[in-house]
């Protein structure tokens, strides 16, 4: 399964890909396009990636999660292009013998994805303006986020 896609994310297929008789717990996280940010209204988001590096970083992240939680299965997918309200931008699926590890690995994966994987979103606000979303004050390379 490609980790970057321009199609709708089939999260059911992602969940099924991590399920196992050795797992007692599955955690799925979905990021979806939210309408309101404070008082501002979003019409759509555009996602762009540095595709070669993003695919490599997603694979590394999955490997790191399996190293930290050896019994887990993990799978991640990020969508690119124009997304309407409510659509799924990212999906993270984890299975594990016990639920603590499944939750911890799921949080680790989405938290780390958001600071290390070269993908950017652009807001299309209801007032007709567009704006790249860039966290500020982040001049250190995020490569060492999990070391």
């Amino acid at each position, binding site marked *: 399964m490609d980790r970057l896609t321009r199609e709708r994310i089939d999260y059911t297929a992602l969940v099924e890909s991590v399920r196992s008789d050795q797992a007692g717990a599955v955690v799925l996280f979905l990021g979806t396009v939210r309408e309101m940010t404070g008082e501002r209204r979003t019409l759509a988001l555009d996602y762009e990636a540095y595709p070669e590096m993003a695919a*490599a970083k997603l694979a590394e992240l999955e490997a790191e999660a399996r190293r930290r939680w050896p019994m887990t299965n993990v799978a991640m997918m990020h969508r690119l292009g124009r997304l309407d309200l409510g659509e799924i931008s990212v999906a993270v699926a984890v299975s594990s013998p016990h639920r603590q590890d499944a939750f911890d690995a799921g949080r680790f994966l989405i938290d780390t994805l958001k600071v290390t994987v070269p993908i950017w979103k652009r807001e299309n606000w209801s007032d007709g303006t567009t704006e790249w979303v860039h966290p*500020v004050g982040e001049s250190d390379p995020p*490569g060492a986020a999990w070391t």
Partner: protein
Amino acid sequence: MNVEVRLFARARDLAGADRVRVELPLAARVIDLRAALAEQFPGLRPLVPNLLVAVGTEYADDATAVGPDVEIACFPPVSGG
């Protein structure tokens, strides 16, 4: 030497191109690349202090060597998810 640099997101918009050629001193490092980008692409200046640099699809720091044989990319802090 002259290297190609890929740009993404707001960096691409500010430079007006998704790939730019940058003139660098010999044995240049990322810190030299930053200075050269700011000088040769004034539109990028507001972003340069926060610009992330990847060399060979790995995050690089200011001491990382850059050259024509490995892919170089510059982009703002990421915001996926």
